[in-house]
C-alpha cells in the first residue's frame, strides 16, 4: 500500500491531500493541477484580490448589466437558489454586512437597517440568455466567504473523480474535508469534530465515504483558552450578530452544499425550507456554555 501526501497554499489557506495507491508521479501531477485550478477559481471569486472577476463585478454591477464568465454566472445562480432554500439566511449578497467588511466594525442600528434594505442576493438580477448580472441595490456586495471553499473542494472532487481517484482525503483549511473511498484500514474515513477548547478531545465523530464535511464556527479559542468571536457572523435578515461559541457541521455528497448549509445553520438551525431534501445528509451543532462544556445537537 502506498500513501502520498501533498500540500500547498491556496485561497488564503492550505490544502492537504492524502492519496492512497496512486504513486508519487501521479500525486505530483494531481497536486499541480489542483493548485492551478484553485488559483483560477481564486482569480474569479476572491474578495481579497481587487482584480478578481467578482471584485470587479461588485464595483461595477449596480445599475449596469455586466458580462460574466459561465463559472461566475453559475455560481451566482446557485447562491440565489440556496438563498431561497434557506429562507434568506444564506445571503452572500450582503457582503458589506456579513462578510470580511464587517469584521470588528460596530455599526449603528440605522446603518445596519440601511445595509439590509439596500443589499442582498435578492437584489441581483441574472439575464440567463446574455449571461449578464445587474445589481439593483447600491450596497450589494457578493462575498464568497460563505461558499468559496465549498466551490473549490467541489472542483477538487470533480477533478479527482475524472482522474479515476477513488481513495483520497482532502482537507481544505481544516474546516472542509472531502473523503473519497475509505481509510486503508477501515470502511470509511473517520473524522473528529474537536472540542474548540480542548483540541485533542472529540466532540463528535463522523464516518465519511465519498462525502464531504464542512464545519463553520463563530470564532476561535486563543492561546489562553479564551473564546474570541470573529464578529463577522450575522443574520442577514436582521443584522444580529451570532457571537456565542458554537460550530455547525454538515455532511453531504456535495461539498458546496455542505459549506453553504454549515454557514446558514450556524445562524439559524431552522432556516431550511420545508421541502429541502435532507436524505443522505447530516447536520449537527456543538454548542458551548460559559464553563466551556459542550452539548451536541443533531439538526438533522
Amino acid at each position, binding site marked *: 500500500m502506498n500513501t502520498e501526501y501533498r*500540500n*500547498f*497554499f491556496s485561497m488564503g*489557506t492550505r490544502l492537504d491531500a*492524502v492519496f492512497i495507491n496512486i504513486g508519487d508521479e501521479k500525486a505530483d501531477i494531481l497536486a499541480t493541477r489542483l493548485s492551478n485550478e484553485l488559483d483560477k477559481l481564486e482569480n474569479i471569486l476572491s474578495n481579497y484580490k481587487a482584480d478578481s472577476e467578482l471584485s470587479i463585478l461588485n464595483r461595477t454591477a449596480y445599475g449596469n448589466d455586466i458580462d460574466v464568465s459561465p463559472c461566475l454566472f453559475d455560481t451566482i445562480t446557485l447562491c440565489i437558489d440556496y438563498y431561497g432554500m434557506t429562507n434568506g439566511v444564506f445571503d452572500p449578497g450582503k457582503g458589506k454586512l456579513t462578510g470580511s467588511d464587517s469584521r470588528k466594525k460596530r455599526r449603528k442600528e440605522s446603518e445596519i437597517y440601511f445595509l439590509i434594505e439596500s443589499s442582498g442576493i435578492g437584489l441581483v438580477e441574472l439575464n440567463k440568455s446574455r449571461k449578464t448580472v445587474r445589481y439593483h441595490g447600491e450596497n450589494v456586495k457578493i462575498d464568497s466567504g460563505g461558499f468559496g471553499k465549498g466551490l473549490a473542494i467541489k472542483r477538487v472532487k470533480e477533478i479527482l473523480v475524472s482522474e479515476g481517484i477513488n481513495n483520497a482525503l482532502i482537507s481544505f483549511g*481544516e474546516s472542509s474535508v472531502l473523503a473519497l473511498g475509505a481509510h486503508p*484500514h*477501515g470502511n470509511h474515513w473517520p473524522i473528529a*469534530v474537536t472540542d474548540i477548547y480542548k483540541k485533542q478531545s472529540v466532540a463528535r465523530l463522523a464516518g465519511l465515504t465519498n462525502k464531504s464535511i464542512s464545519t463553520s464556527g463563530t470564532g476561535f479559542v486563543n492561546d489562553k483558552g479564551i473564546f474570541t468571536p*470573529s464578529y463577522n457572523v450575522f443574520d442577514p435578515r436582521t443584522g444580529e450578530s451570532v457571537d456565542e461559541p458554537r460550530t455547525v457541521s454538515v455532511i453531504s455528497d456535495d461539498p458546496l452544499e455542505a459549506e453553504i448549509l454549515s454557514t446558514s445553520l450556524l445562524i439559524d438551525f431552522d432556516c431550511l425550507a420545508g421541502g429541502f431534501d435532507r436524505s443522505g445528509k447530516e447536520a449537527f451543532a456543538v454548542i458551548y456554555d460559559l464553563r466551556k462544556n459542550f452539548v451536541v445537537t443533531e439538526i438533522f
Partner: protein
Amino acid sequence: MTYKQSRRIFLQKTALITGGLFLGSHLPDLRTLAADQGETTEEVKLGLIGSGSRGQYLMDHLNLIPGIEVVAVCDNYQPNLTMGVQKTGGKAEAFTDYRKLLERRDIDGVIIATPLHLHSLMSVDALQAGLHVFCEKAMAKTPRECLDMYKTQLQTGKILLIGHQRMFNPRYLKAFEMINSGQLGDITQIRAYWHRNNDWRRAVPEPGLERKINWRLYWEYSEGLMTELGSHQIQVANFIKKDFPRRVAGTGSINYWHDGREVFDNVNLVYEYPDGSTLIYDSMISNAHYGLEEQVMGPKGTMELETGKMYSENPPPAPGILQLLNNIEHKIFDPLPLGGKSWVPETAREAKGEYIYEVDLEDDGTALEMEGFAQMIRENRHSDILLREAYYGAIAALLGNEAIKKGEMITFPEEYIL
C-alpha cells in the same frame, strides 16, 4: 539602537546561532566573540591605510568600539588624510607613505581601505612587517595576487581578514544555520543581484584627479562591479554551498554610462558548482528598482538574505495529517481531527514570507567585524575559514570578468585551488 545595545543583542542571539553545529564548527571566531568579553578589554592599536570614503566609514565604526585605538592614518590624498585624522580626534599620526606607517613598532595591525590594485601589495608588506591585517574586499585584483596574500599569511602566521561583513551579520548567520540545517533542502540555485541607479562617480575637484578619485571606473585600478559588489554576494553563495564555482560564463558591457569609464556598467553571469547547482548573478547601475538581494532556493523553500525572509514551498501540514499518515503506515484506524474555523496563515506570514531574524540591528556587520578583528588580534588567532571564503569569492568574481572579456566559459584554474 546604540552599538552597545545592538552588540548586546548580537551576543545573545549569536551565542544561540553559533551554538548550532554548522556555524559553531565553521566560524569559531564568532563563537569566541559571542562569549561576551566584558567591558574591560586589552587595548588594540591600529593603523588605517586609506582614509577615503570607505576608510572613514570604517573609522566611524571603530570609534564605537571600546578597546580599539587608531593611532596612525595614511593616505596620499590630503583631503582624505585630513578627514581620517580628524576622525581620531586629531590624535593619530599622519602618513602619506604606508611603508612609513608600517615601521611604527607600537601598532598591532592595520586596516587597509585603498583601491583594489593596492590590496595585495600593502597587505603582503604589512604581514611581512609583522602586523595583523584587515583588508577591505575584494581580496585583490588578480588571482595571483590573492594567492600571494594567502601564502604570505601562511608564512607569517599573522591574521589576515578580508572585509566581508555579512559573515558578522546576525541575520546572515541565522540564515546560514537555517539553510545548513536543511530547511530549504539541497540548494539548487542561488540568484543574486545588486542594482543601483547612479553613475558610480565621485566629485573630482580638478580633471587631473579623475583616475585617482574615480579609480573604480578604470581597469588599471579596479575590476568594477564584480569586485566592488559581486564579491560580497559570491562569497555568501560560496559559504552557503560550502564550495566554490568551477565554471562561469556570461556577458557584460557599458550600455548606459558612456562617460569615458572603462569598467562594465552591467554584468550578467552564471556560475556552476560541482554538484550542478548554479549562482545566477547580475549587477547594473542604470536601474535600482530591484535593489540588492541573494535568493537561495531549494526544494523546500526560498530564503532572501538581504531582507531576511523565508518562503516555504509548502505550508505546514494540517494538525493531525502527519499523525494520520503515521497511523496508516502502522495500520491504526484513528480519526482525523477537524477544526471549526478555517486555518489561515499567521497574518499571511507563511504565504508572504517569514522573517528569519526578529531583531533589526542597525549594524550591517561592519562594527561587529571590526570588533571581531580586534578580538582575533588579542587572541592572536587567525581564521583560515574566513580567509578561504574571501579568497574563493574574490577569484570567482575576477573569473566572472574574465569570462565576460573573453566571451568564453572560464574554468576555475587548478593552480588557484588551495
